């Protein structure tokens, strides 16, 4: 059992990461920073997915539902056209919390009842919700802009450097916050649910309450990511928010980085974004996505533990080498 207050030592990696990220804007061009911004958002979405699915094992295909709902609510309220017929245009500091609240509320209304149902049913139902929301957003064209979505939304801040600071700050705040939660006893219970839910239940814990806690954290994170992403891009559309590729990117980021680790998804988010961006000039259209899907498939197949698992193995190997042999507490 790790007591996170006493293990201040493990914060040193966070410090190194934060220092690196703070130096970055002074040495790289804005075009590179723009990729980092996308990577930060992808990392936020992946952390959100990891908090729920990576820890509890309830694979959600519906995270774009939460992200898209938050983004759409904030976009509809802040759009110049406003709500029709009464033209209300609210400022961002009101619409963004409302968007996050919509993600949490909508999620609790739809996802939580299905979390009582175990196994593959939850995954299928979450995908179904995603499809329904996507259809409704297209059908309710008067408010949501239909297929084309809403454009020219207000920005939170402008310029690559400002957006970089903003997205990096949010990403680190969320990551460290959830990392602390995941290292606490709650995180252990969530991992135990993934391994054997019946055992957790029979030791007197209400697994539903733990799942609900994980879900709310996940939904808040998804909502924050969703509204900031929407107002960074300045537009939202069903093709972007509810696309399978978007869903794939979130899941692949988490799995490639390492499920159930919070830190892994950050690496996964950066890997996925930089991989798809760096191949943009080399390969075109479908070839790029094909290459990306195949790489993702290979990592999932050969290294289900992801980058975090690989790093863990390497670190363990060095420890064993230094001490000259395998010791009991290092096996796991």
């Amino acid at each position: 059992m790790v007591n996170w207050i006493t293990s201040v030592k493990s914060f040193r990696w966070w410090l190194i990461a934060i220092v690196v990220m703070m130096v970055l804007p002074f040495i790289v061009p804005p075009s590179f920073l723009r990729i980092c911004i996308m990577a930060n958002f992808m990392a936020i979405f992946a952390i959100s997915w990891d908090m729920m699915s990576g820890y509890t094992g309830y694979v959600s295909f519906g995270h774009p539902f939460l992200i898209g709902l938050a983004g759409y609510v904030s976009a509809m309220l802040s759009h110049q056209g406003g709500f029709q017929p009464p033209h209300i245009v609210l400022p961002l500091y009101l619409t963004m919390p409302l968007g996050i609240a919509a993600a949490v509320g909508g999620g609790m209304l739809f996802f939580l009842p299905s979390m009582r149902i175990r196994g593959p049913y939850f995954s299928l139902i979450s995908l179904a919700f995603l499809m329904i929301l996507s259809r409704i957003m297209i059908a309710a064209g008067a408010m949501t802009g239909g297929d084309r979505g809403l454009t020219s939304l207000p920005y939170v801040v402008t310029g690559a450097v400002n957006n970089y600071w903003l997205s990096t700050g949010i990403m680190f705040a969320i990551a460290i916050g959830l990392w602390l939660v995941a290292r606490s006893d709650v995180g252990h219970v969530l991992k135990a649910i993934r391994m054997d839910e019946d055992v957790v239940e029979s030791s007197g814990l209400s697994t539903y309450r733990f799942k609900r806690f994980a879900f709310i954290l996940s939904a808040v994170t998804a909502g924050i990511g969703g509204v900031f992403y929407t107002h960074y891009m300045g537009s939202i559309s069903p093709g972007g928010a509810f696309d399978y590729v978007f869903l794939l990117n979130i899941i692949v980021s988490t799995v490639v980085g390492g499920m159930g680790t919070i830190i892994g998804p950050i690496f996964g988010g950066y890997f996925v974004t930089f991989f798809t961006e760096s191949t943009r000039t080399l390969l075109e259209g479908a070839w790029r996505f094909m290459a990306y899907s195949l790489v993702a498939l290979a990592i999932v197949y050969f290294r289900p533990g992801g980058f975090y698992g690989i790093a863990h193995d390497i670190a363990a190997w060095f420890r064993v080498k230094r001490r000259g042999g395998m010791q009991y507490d290092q096996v796991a």
Partner: protein
Amino acid sequence: MLALAQSIAINGALLSGLYALISLGFTMIYGVGRVLNLAHAAYVMLGGYVYFHCLQIVGIPEPISMLIAIAVCAGASLATYVGLVRRYLYNPTIVFVSTFILALVINYLVVLIWGMETKNVWPVVSGLTQVMGQPVSNNMIASLVVSWVCISGVLLFVRKTHMGRAMRALAMDRKGAIVSGINPDRVNLLTWTMAGGLAGIAGIFFGSYTYLVPAMWHMPMVMSFAIVIIGGLGSIEGTLVAAHIVGYMQTTTTLAIDERLRGVFALIIMIIVLVVRPKGLFGK
């Protein structure tokens, strides 16, 4: 009004047959291996495209084109099991994620080979017949007949043959089946091959029913989820009944309400079933 009702009756029967055919393989794989193959609907698309390619680009005669399409799908399904799923049979998260990525790989493969444009497949059987005063294409009737032949064939196979009984035994009690000498791996190999073949047949008719486009697998995928959940995961009879509920629901929505809400009602039924009876109508 009468014409609309007749139209719904006829089109609903056809769509339900196709949906049953698409969902059958999906539910069989779940029943035997407790694995959800998210790439299943992508095989349906692959079947349609391979048939189109053989028939209309290469110019191979119709029956042989069909056989090639079915064989390609069966092979793809078998390869998925052997190459991807078998290693992580007891890790549903990995199976979910990897078969989902595989579906997108197949999607991009289709885009790369055949492009994004829609393609029209020649009807398998040409001509029109009057049914209840409504003109119905012979292709639709053929597709309905083939669907029912395949479904009855699978039901007979599962009930009457030794291998079919082994499948049902595995679905009921895995350990008990293994103790009585059933090799689960062999049964899985056969089930995945059969499921792929059924997806191929469904693809041929689904392609000629609508048209071919790389996004055509989305709707069958979601509909087959809804069908297997309403019917009960792993139950063939349940799949058949649920396919008709969903098929008629969808036809009614498309013809009488709003084409854009296609699929929404089926998903709503699915959610109601999940809340009221989580194991589905026929699930155990």
